[in-house]
Each structure stands twice: as C-alpha cells, then as structure tokens.
C-alpha cells in the first residue's frame, strides 16, 4: 500500500489529528499530534490491511539555531521533532510518522517536552524511547522505566540538543 492510501486512511480515521504530510519527500512522512500518537500507532499496527508490525527507529531531531543571524534564515520556529520509522513485514510497506513537540514543556526552559510512550505498541520503543530521552531530552509518559541508557545516570543535560554544552568535568574528571 502506498503512502497516499495510508494517508487517506489515517485522515479518514483521525481527521484533523493528522497534522501534515509530505508524500513526495525522499521518505514520505505523515505528522500526527502528540496526544493521538499511541492511538494512531495501534491503528497502524492492528489494522488488517496496514499491519505495521515493526518499529525500526525513533529519532529525535532538535530544530534550534543558537546563532540569531542564521536563525532568521532557517524558516522554522525552534521545535523538537520525533520520527518513527515503521514498516510492515507482511505487506512490505514503510511509513515515517512525525510528531512535532515544543522544545520545552509549556515554554519553561528545563522542563522536558512530553509525548505518550508507544512502548506498549512495539517493545522496540522501550529502549529507543530511553535513548531519545537520554540524548534528545523528551519525556515519554507512560514508559515503564524511563531512565538514561547510554549516558551515566547522573549525567546532566541531553547531548543531542543543539544548545547543549558539554560539561568541563564529570565526577572530578576533566572531560573536555
């Protein structure tokens, strides 16, 4: 099933909760609202003609430009984007789900943005969400055990955020 049809199905089922789509991109993507993500995922997974039974990857992309001059050229507001790469081993079709999040929850710096976990839909999401939380700083609500996975538990900050500054010291050891 091609991205066009899938998009149609999703629009039909979820209406305006499907925010945007680019079906002509290198990898066709469909953007959904954060709140409806688990519902959409369950639909994609369980719908007999869709059956996206494998989640490949969850990636967090931080759209933030610290340099004000270049920031003006970017053409986007600072935001955080999550990408879910799905595929169906049954029908061999692929899809990219996107979720757009604020960089900080309610605009308060330091408060991580939240998105519902899909660890109960695909268990791949368990570790991948931990990784996104660890490196990109997104809080997945409803995740069974959301803690850092690659960085040490007492690490500060989320390294893949564009405004991240690596610490000079970690536990008394120079790291720069």
């Amino acid at each position, binding site marked *: 099933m091609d991205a066009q049809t899938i998009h149609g199905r999703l629009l039909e089922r979820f209406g305006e909760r499907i925010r945007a789509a680019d079906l002509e991109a290198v990898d066709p993507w469909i953007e959904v609202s954060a709140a409806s993500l688990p519902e959409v995922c*369950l639909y994609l*997974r*369980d719908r007999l003609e869709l*059956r996206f*039974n494998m989640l490949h990857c969850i990636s967090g992309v931080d759209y933030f430009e610290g340099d004000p001059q270049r920031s003006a050229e970017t053409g986007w507001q600072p935001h955080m984007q999550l990408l879910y790469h799905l595929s169906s*081993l*049954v029908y*061999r079709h692929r899809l990219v789900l996107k979720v757009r999040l604020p960089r900080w929850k309610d605009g308060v710096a330091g408060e991580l943005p939240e998105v519902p976990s899909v*660890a*109960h*839909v*695909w*268990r791949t999401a368990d570790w991948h969400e931990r990784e996104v939380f660890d490196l990109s700083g997104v809080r997945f609500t*409803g*995740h*069974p055990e959301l803690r850092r996975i690659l960085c040490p538990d007492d690490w500060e900050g989320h390294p893949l955020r564009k405004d991240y500054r690596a610490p000079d010291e970690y536990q008394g050891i120079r790291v720069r």
Partner: protein
Amino acid sequence: MDAVCWHSVFFLLFALAACGFALAVVVSTNVVRMAFSLVLSLGAVAGLFFLAGADLLGGVQLLVYLGGTMLLLVFGVMLTARGKAAEMKTTPGWWLLALVVGGSLLAVLWQAAFSVDAWSTPSAGATQSQAARPTAAPIGLALLGVRVDQPLGEEGGEPVLSGYLLAFEIVSVHLLVVLVGAAYLARAQRRPGTTASEETAPRTPNSQLPTPNS
C-alpha cells in the same frame, strides 16, 4: 638420633593437629573456618589411623568423613552462610552447656582410655586379659545379623540368624525417606515473572503472525 622415635613424633604431630583444630572449631566464630578446622581435625585423625597401620580405616575415614560428610557440610555451609549467618557468636549460656556436655564426655573417654590395663602399666603384657573384657564387637556384629553372644546352632541344623540387621536396615531406609521428604518440602515454588521489578505496564500484544513472504 637414637633418642628420636619417629613414630611417636608423628603420633604427637597428628594428635596435636587433631586436638588443635578441634579446639579451633570451638573457638572460631566463622562458620566456614569452623567447618574447615573440622576437616583438618578429621584429616589428622585419619593420619593417626595410618600411623597405627590401620590403612583401611584411614582410607575410609578420608573417604567417608572428609570426602563425603564434610564435603556436604561445607557445601551446606556455603549455601547458607552469607552475611550475618557466616558469623556465629556463642553466648555464655551455650559455653556453659557445652562445657558440661563436653566435660562429661571427656570424663567418660578419660576413664575408658585409662582403664585399659596395657596403657596404665605398659610393662604388663596384659593382652590376654584385654580379650576377655567386654567390647562393642558383639553388638556391631549383631547389627550385621550375626549374634556371637548366642550359641550357634548345631552343624546342619537351623542357623541362628536373629541379629538386628532387619531393624538396622529399616531404620536406615526410614532415615533416607525422611531426608528425601525434607528435601522435597524444602523445594521452593515460584511463579516466573512475579517479582515487582518485572511488572511492566499493561500492553496489548503485537500478536499478528507474520505471514511467510514468498
């Protein structure tokens, strides 16, 4: 060199080791060290047997007591003795009780040891009188089914086989059954995945079977 009797030297060595390690069992507070001291003590006793020319007894002592019983004991100690259980403090009350029991046993042994004429008076060759003294041999043989204290039947007649063998075997089988039963009762039953840390958020399974591609 003439004055040295090597036999006695080794006897003293083994005897001292046996007693010393036996004392160490009592004094030590660490269970594993206790067990190991007991191993050494029993090993020294085996050495005494070898010294006395009782090779079979020495071998059996090593095989049964050290290789069997003590090994199981040490194994059990290792399984259970972790953390606090490894240290054993003896209260004064226990000391007192142990002194009374141990002391009385010592007294009996002392009396028994020095009541042998040959020992108290080494010069007197009193081996003949020793043979007449009551020993544990009859009861040991009776446990094997031979009653030496009763006259044998006439040749060709009914042999007297009224030892304690049957009772002995019944008791030993009974003990075995008890051991097996105890082991069975001690078995743990557990449901897999019931520990709290394994609980995960309720989830609906991703249950569709992939149809084989072809």
